[in-house]
Every structure is written in C-alpha cells, then in structure tokens.
C-alpha cells in the first residue's frame, strides 16, 4: 500500500483549565489514505474537535506524531505552519458564526487567497467566482452579505472558502448537523461530487453514525479521547466490535417502521 496522506501516531493533547489539567486526546493513532473519506464518530466531549484542531495546527499537541504526506507537521513554527496551511482546510459546524457578517461573500471566499498571496490580485476574484459556481451559488450573489443566505447556502460559502485554496485534505467538523434533513442531503451530495471531481480526501467529524455509514469509506469510533474501533463503514455498522459502538448503534432509531424498535427505546421489558 502507498503512503497514507495523513498519519497520526500516539497523539496526546492536554491543556490546563485553572488548576486542573484535562486530557482530551489520549494516544490516538490513525491514518487517512489519499482519496479516502474517514469518518471520526463520537459523542459530545469525546475529543473529536480537539483532534481536528490539532491536525489543523490550531492546538499544539503534548506529544505524538502528525505526518502529512510523509512530513512531520506537529511541531511546525508559525512561518512554516502558514506555508503548510493551504494543504489542509476546514469546514466548520456553524455556518452562522464562522462567516464575518461585515464582508461580502465574494470577499470572504477570496480572503484565503489574499492572505496567502496566491495568484494575481485580478485573478483572485475570478477564482472566487469559479468556486461559487462550483458549489452551486449564483456568481451574481457575490456582492451580498452572509445574512442574506440560508443555512445551507452559508455552508456552501464555507465549503467554497475552504476549497479555493485547492487543498488535498478537507476536515469537515459536523458540517451538516445544524442543517435540515433535505438541505443536509444537498450538502452531503455536494461534498461527494467535489471529492470525486477534485480528488479530495476527507476527515469527516460527526456524531451521526447513520449519516456517515452512507457516506464514509472507513469509520473511526472515538470514545473518551481514544479510538476504540476502526473499520469499513458498512462493517462497523453491521458488526460492531467495541462495547461503545454497540451501545451507540443500539440507541440509534433507524427511520424505518419495518425494523424492530431498538432495545434502548423499548419499555415492554421493564
């Protein structure tokens, strides 16, 4: 097998809160192959967002290895980190708080290119418009402000802003959990198309195992700062190995009336 795009080995992250030290990431090892969608699934507070922030260089690890395309990126200084950043981009959960309300959409999408001084000034706006079109936003809406867009459209803006840098790896941190079901499907399908057309790899963070089962190649189950199970999505769903995964699957209500009600919902046994 070829080298993985991202390899994490025995990663620990801890930080001090007042007098106590908390330890949200406790020795995580995982890899993500080129062109793959790896879903990271866990409950709130399990450390999945801290892990994402650490990979993005927004949080320093206390120990461990993060290798991107064979290069260690865990201990990069500010200068090197900035040069590296275009390779990994991120789409955040809340499309309302992650966009500056005072900037026009085309400015927002252009901004990463300005910061990294990519391309000529004149061509940056053109690239922003191309990206808008690519994610399904009419380019003549470029002069509008974020509040004029719906939640789903704002998430498209967030995706355009991340992809304008032409990254190889996109980290999606709960990108659809604030969206309605019909809009969620639109965004998931958009991410799926973009991955196919642009050769992206995804680290997809979610609490929704049912959603990632339809979408991810592999799933890593995270529980209390550790990865407790990894495997092909289908296999994790149909044949969970770890107690935590089983407990979660038993509690997921599948929207299908022909299936038996999951044990965690039944009161007849009481």
């Amino acid at each position, binding site marked *: 097998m070829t080298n993985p795009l991202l390899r994490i080995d025995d990663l620990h992250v801890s930080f001090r809160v007042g007098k106590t030290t908390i330890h949200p990431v406790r020795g995580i090892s995982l890899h993500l192959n080129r062109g793959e969608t790896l879903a990271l699934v866990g409950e709130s507070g399990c450390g999945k967002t801290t892990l994402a922030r650490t990979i993005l260089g927004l949080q320093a690890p206390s120990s461990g290895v993060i290798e991107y395309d064979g290069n260690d990126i865990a201990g990069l200084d500010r200068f090197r980190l900035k040069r590296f950043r275009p390779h990994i981009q991120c789409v955040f959960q809340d499309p309302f708080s992650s966009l500056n309300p005072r900037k026009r959409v085309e400015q927002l999408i252009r901004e990463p290119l300005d910061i990294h001084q990519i391309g000529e000034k004149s061509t940056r706006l053109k690239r922003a418009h191309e990206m808008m079109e690519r994610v399904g936003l009419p380019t003549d809406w470029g002069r509008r402000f974020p509040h004029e867009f719906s939640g789903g459209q704002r998430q498209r803006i967030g995706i355009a802003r991340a992809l304008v840098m032409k990254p190889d790896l996109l980290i999606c941190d709960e990108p659809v959990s604030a969206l309605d079901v019909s809009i969620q499907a639109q965004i998931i399908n958009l991410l799926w198309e973009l991955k196919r057309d642009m050769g992206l790899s995804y680290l997809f963070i979610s609490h929704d195992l049912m959603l990632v089962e339809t979408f991810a190649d592999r799933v890593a189950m995270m529980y209390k700062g550790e990865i407790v199970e990894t495997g092909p999505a289908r296999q994790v769903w149909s044949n969970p190995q770890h107690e935590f995964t089983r407990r979660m699957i038993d509690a997921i209500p*599948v929207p299908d009336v022909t299936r038996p009600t999951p044990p965690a*919902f039944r009161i007849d046994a009481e």
Partner: protein
Amino acid sequence: MANPILQVENLQICVRKKPGVLILRGVSFHVNAGETLAIVGESGCGKSMTSLAIMGLLPDAVEKLSGTIRFKGRELPITDNRAMRKVRAAEIGMVFQEPMAALDPLYPVGKQVLEVIEEHEKLPREMAWARVIDLLTKVDLPNPETLAWSYPHKLSGGQLQRVVIAMALACNPDVLIADEPTTALDVTVQAQIMRLLKRLQRDTGVAIVLITHNLGLVAHTADRVMVMYAGNKAEEAPTRDLFLNPRHPYTRGLLDATPNPERASAQGGVLREIPGTVPSIADPMPGCRFAPRCANASELCRARFPEPTFEGAHGYACHHPVTDARV
C-alpha cells in the same frame, strides 16, 4: 374516532400587524388522550410556533389571526396570560429543547420543581417537597434528596432534561408538549429520555405531542404523525402508514433524504435530496408552497392551494399525491 383531548382548528398566526405575512396558514389537528402525536418538519415550518400558541406563549412579534384551540372541549384563552398560567403545567406541560435555558441557574433544581407545584396547588411545604423528591425519583435521577439541592450547572444535559420533565409532569397534566426534547443530547442519552417519556406515558396516560425533525425518533415512538411544510399541514397519518405509504411528495422527499443504512438509497449522489429551499414567509404564492421544489407540480399546484383529502385516518394536501409505495 378516539377521544380528542386537544383540538386545533384553522390556526392562523401572522407577524404582528402584517396579516399578509403568515407563519401558520390555517393548521388543524387533534391529539387523542394518551397517544403520542409527532409533529415533523424542517426549520421554519411552524411546528414550534404551533406549540407556543397552544401554551399561550406566542412571542410579541406575532399574533393569532384566526382559529381556535380547544382543550377538553373548551377554548383556551391563549391571549390571556393570567388565565393561561392556570393551564400551563397543570393541564398542559411543556419540555423545551435546551434544558439549560429552561432552568434558572441561580436556584437549586428541586426548588424549581417545587415552584411549579406551589404555583398550582396549596400544599404544606413538607408535602410539596416530598412530591418533588418523588418526581425526581420517577424520572430516574440518582440520589434525589441530594440532587434536589444541586444547581443546574452541576448536572449533565440528560439529567437537566429529566428535571425539566419532572417540572412538566409535576401537576399531572393531560398533555405534554415536548419540543425537540432530545436534539441537544447524545444518542444514548436521547434513547434514555425517550424511554423515560414513554414509560411515564404508560403509567400516567399523558398524551405527548412530540415536535421533532428526527424521523427515526418518530418511527419508533409516535402513534400518529403530522408533517408540516412552510406553515401548512402537508400530511397526517398513523406512523406506519406514513412511513410506508407517504402521499405528499414532501413527506416522500423527507423520508428519502434521511440517511438510512438499512436501505440502498445511494444513486448518483449519496442521498436523495430535495432541490431548492423553503419559501420565505413573506412570499405570497397563491398555490402549494412546496410546488417550486416538487417534481409532480403542475399549473394547478402553482395556482390553487390543495384542499386536504382524507382516506380514513390518512390525510394529505396535494393535487398530485405520490401513488407508489416505498420499497
């Protein structure tokens, strides 16, 4: 027909002083004693506004334009706050989405349950307190005597929601409105809370109105379902019927867009999506509000709003209903 305990007829709610900007566009439904009715729909469809109207808690920015809400046959005075105080909790209880926001951070949780009891019943303090402990026990909270003196920030999200449920049921209401009661919780905690609600329903006979966007929850906890879209009732049916034979194209679209590992929905993309977005409430379109997103839509749909059609207990508002069953 079973015995309706709550009846909503032709409820229209508009933005205050703007009768043209309708949030609820004439919604009618009923809740039978002891049953669970799920109200399903996406943000902005009017499901939360419906529950706030029943509780007499409409925000100042909106007003009732027409319609009646009847509880046990008598009309609820939903614009009269003093009269509604006697109804809330005593006859209709409510559980909100964010348990942390529903509780006062400055008082121990037991005191907050006590306050509900004392608002409605004249009881000696000791008896009322004993009832608080009893309620906290019934919602499966550990060490209720100690926990009653805890402040909200000491409790987990699931524990807080149990306290809110205890408050809602403190005066034995006949109807419990649960507005997205588990949306802020992890799935394992969600299952515990839903099981608790179902058990309390079995033991007390309380009817539950479950407002949710989670179709999985609906499939496994509701007796009947009402689907709302953009301020209208799109469809209502017994749960099994709705999932197997949805007649409204919106219901069908919603079911097909929901991730479900047990069926092969993958084709082209990953999920079957509903194109487009919900229309603005200020948009005065004369016909069906789902028409711009609907594959079945015709000129008729765009011109005239469809009257509800009933086939037994299954009703839908559509000119061109879906005819093939879901496989």
